[in-house]
C-alpha cells in the first residue's frame, strides 16, 4: 500500500501550528480577529480588537496562548439521522511531515444516504477519501467501514473490502492506455466471471446513463474534462458498489453540467441505494443533492447532520460557509 502524500492540496499546516481548542461558549471574535490569530508576536494582543477597522496585515497578532481559538467554531455536533453509519472516522489524526491534516476527526457517513463532506480548500477532504479505501492509514485513531477497521485489515481483506467501493477521482483517473469501453469494463473483467457480451451490455448501459454512449471507442486523451469525469462515474458504478465516493465531481465543470451530474448522482442513488459520499466545496451542489452534510475545517468536523438542519445551523462558521459569504469566521488564511 502506498502511504505518500501525493495529492493533498494543503499547505496550510506547513508551519506545524497546532491549536488545541477553546470553550465553544466563549464570545465569538470578529472576522478580523480570526484572521489575526497566530500571525505575529505575543505582545500585541491588546491591539487585536482594533484590527476590525484597518488592514489586518499591519496589525500584530494575539499571543500564541490564543491558538486554542482555532477550534472555537468546532462544536463537533452530530445530529442523529436514525440510520447506522457505513463509514466511521474515530479520532483520526494524520500528518504529512510537519503538516497536520486530520487532527482528531470524528465523522460518520450514514448508510443509504447521499452525504457531503464540505469544507474550505486544504482541510483534508480528499485525505478522508483515501483513508476510507485504505490508500492512506491514520497516524492515530481508526477508520471503520461497515464496522471493520480498515487499518487492521490484511492486504487481501483490504482488496476485498475495496470491491465494495466505487470511487470517482477528481479527473476521472481513466487508464490512458485503454479506450472508454475497456476502462469501464476493466473492473468487470477483473472481478466477475461474466461473459464478454454481458460485460459489454453493462458497460454500454452505464455509458448511456452518463451520456457517453456515442464516445465508447474514444481514448481518454480525446475526451474533455467533463466527459472524463462522467466516464469515471460510469466506471465507479459498474460493479454496483455499496459505497460510492466522489472527489469533487463538480470541479472544472460548467454550471449546467454540474447540475446534470448532480441529477445523475441522485438518479443512480435512487436506483441503487447505498452510501454515496460527495466531497466538494460547491454549495449549489450541496443544496441539490446532499441529504447529510459534514462540515470539515482544520482537520475536524465543525458540525454534521441532515442537510436541511445544517443549512439552518446557528453556527457562524457553518452559516458563512453554506451561504458562501465573505464575512464570517473563515478568512483567507
Amino acid at each position, binding site marked *: 500500500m*502506498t502511504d*505518500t*502524500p*501525493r495529492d493533498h492540496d494543503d499547505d496550510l499546516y506547513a508551519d506545524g501550528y497546532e491549536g488545541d481548542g477553546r470553550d465553544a461558549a466563549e464570545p465569538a471574535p470578529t472576522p478580523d480577529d480570526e484572521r489575526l490569530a497566530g500571525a505575529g508576536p505575543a505582545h500585541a494582543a491588546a491591539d487585536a480588537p482594533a484590527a476590525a477597522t484597518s488592514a489586518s496585515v499591519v496589525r500584530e497578532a494575539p499571543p500564541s496562548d490564543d491558538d486554542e481559538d482555532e477550534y472555537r467554531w468546532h462544536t463537533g455536533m452530530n445530529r442523529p439521522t436514525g440510520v447506522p453509519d457505513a463509514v466511521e472516522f474515530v479520532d483520526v489524526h494524520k500528518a504529512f511531515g510537519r503538516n497536520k491534516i486530520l487532527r482528531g476527526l470524528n465523522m460518520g457517513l450514514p448508510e443509504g444516504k447521499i452525504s457531503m463532506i464540505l469544507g474550505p480548500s486544504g482541510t483534508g477532504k480528499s485525505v478522508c477519501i483515501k483513508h476510507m479505501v485504505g*490508500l492512506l492509514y491514520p497516524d492515530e485513531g481508526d477508520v471503520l467501514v461497515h464496522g471493520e477497521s480498515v487499518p487492521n485489515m490484511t492486504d487481501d481483506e483490504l*482488496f476485498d473490502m475495496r470491491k465494495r*467501493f466505487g470511487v470517482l*477521482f477528481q479527473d476521472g483517473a481513466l487508464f490512458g492506455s485503454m479506450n472508454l469501453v475497456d476502462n469501464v469494463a476493466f473492473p468487470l473483467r*477483473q472481478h466477475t466471471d461474466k461473459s464478454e457480451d454481458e460485460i459489454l451490455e453493462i458497460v454500454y448501459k452505464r455509458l448511456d446513463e452518463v451520456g457517453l454512449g456515442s464516445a465508447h471507442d474514444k481514448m481518454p486523451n480525446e475526451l474533455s474534462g467533463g466527459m472524463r469525469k462522467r466516464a469515471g462515474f460510469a466506471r465507479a458504478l459498474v460493479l454496483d458498489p455499496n459505497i460510492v465516493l466522489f472527489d469533487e465531481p463538480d470541479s472544472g465543470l460548467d454550471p449546467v453540467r454540474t447540475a446534470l451530474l448532480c441529477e445523475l448522482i441522485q438518479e443512480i442513488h435512487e436506483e441503487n441505494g447505498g452510501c454515496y459520499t460527495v466531497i466538494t466545496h460547491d454549495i449549489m451542489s450541496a443544496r441539490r443533492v446532499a441529504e447529510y452534510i459534514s462540515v470539515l475545517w482544520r482537520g475536524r468536523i465543525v458540525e454534521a447532520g441532515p442537510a436541511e438542519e445544517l443549512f439552518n445551523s446557528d453556527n457562524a462558521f457553518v452559516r458563512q460557509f453554506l451561504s458562501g459569504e465573505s464575512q464570517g469566521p473563515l478568512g483567507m488564511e
Partner: protein
Amino acid sequence: MGGWLALPKEWIGSFGSIAKFSGKILKQVYTLRVLHFFGETLRQCGVLILGSTLVIWGLVFIVGLQCGIEGAYFTRAQGAPAYSGVFAAWCDLREIVPYGFGYMMAAKVGTGIVAELGSMRISDEIDALEVMGIDSVLFLCATKLLASWLVLPFMYMAAVGAGFFASYLAVVQQIGEVSPGGFSLIFWMFQNPPDLLYSVIKAMVMATAIVLVGCYYGYHAGGGPVGVGTATAKSMVMNIVLVHLIGMLGTQVFWGANPRAPIGG
C-alpha cells in the same frame, strides 16, 4: 558531522527502499501470483517486442560494426590480421553487446516504465487500480518483470546475432583482409556455448535491475510532471551505474578466473 553523513544516509535509505520494493515484485513473480494477470503480462510482452526490439538490435548492430573495425585495425597493426576474429568474438559477446543492450534498455525501457508509471501515479490511475481491489504492484510491476524475462532472452540472443553479423560485415566485407572462412574459424574458436549463456545471464541481470529500478522510481513518483521528469532522470543515472557494475562483476565472475581462450596449452 550530520551534514556530510546526510548524503550517504540518503543513498543507503534509497537503496533499502528499492531493495524492499524489488523484493516484493520478485516474490510476486516467483510465487506465480503474477499469473493472475497473465493477459497483462502478454500485453507487456507485446509492448516490449514492438517498442524496443528494433532499437536494441539497431544499436547492437552498430556496436558490432565497431568491434569488427577496432579488431581488424588492431590486429593488422600487430601484423596478424587473420586474428581479428578474436577481438570481435570477445568484444561482441562479452562486453559491447551486453553494454549496448543495457544502455538501450535503460534509455528506452527503463525510462519508459518510469514515465508510464509516474504519469499513472500523478493522474491517480494507480490509486484507481487500488480502489478497484487490484494489487497495483502486481498488476503494473510484476507483469512487466515477467514479460521482460519471457521476451528479453530471445531478443538478446538475436541481438548477439546482429552484433556478430555486423562484425563479420566490418571485418570481412568492409576491411576485407580476412577471408570469410578464416574469420569464422578464429571467431568461433574463441567462444563456446557457455560463453553465450554467461552473456545472456549478464544481460538478464542488467534487464532485471533496469525494470525494477524503473518500476520503483515510476511507482513512487510524485510532485506532478516535474516530479516524473526528476524520477526519470534519477532512474537513468542509477540504471547506467548498475549496468556498468553488473557488466564489471559479470566479466570478473564469468571470465576473470578463466578467460576461456584457446591460447597456448
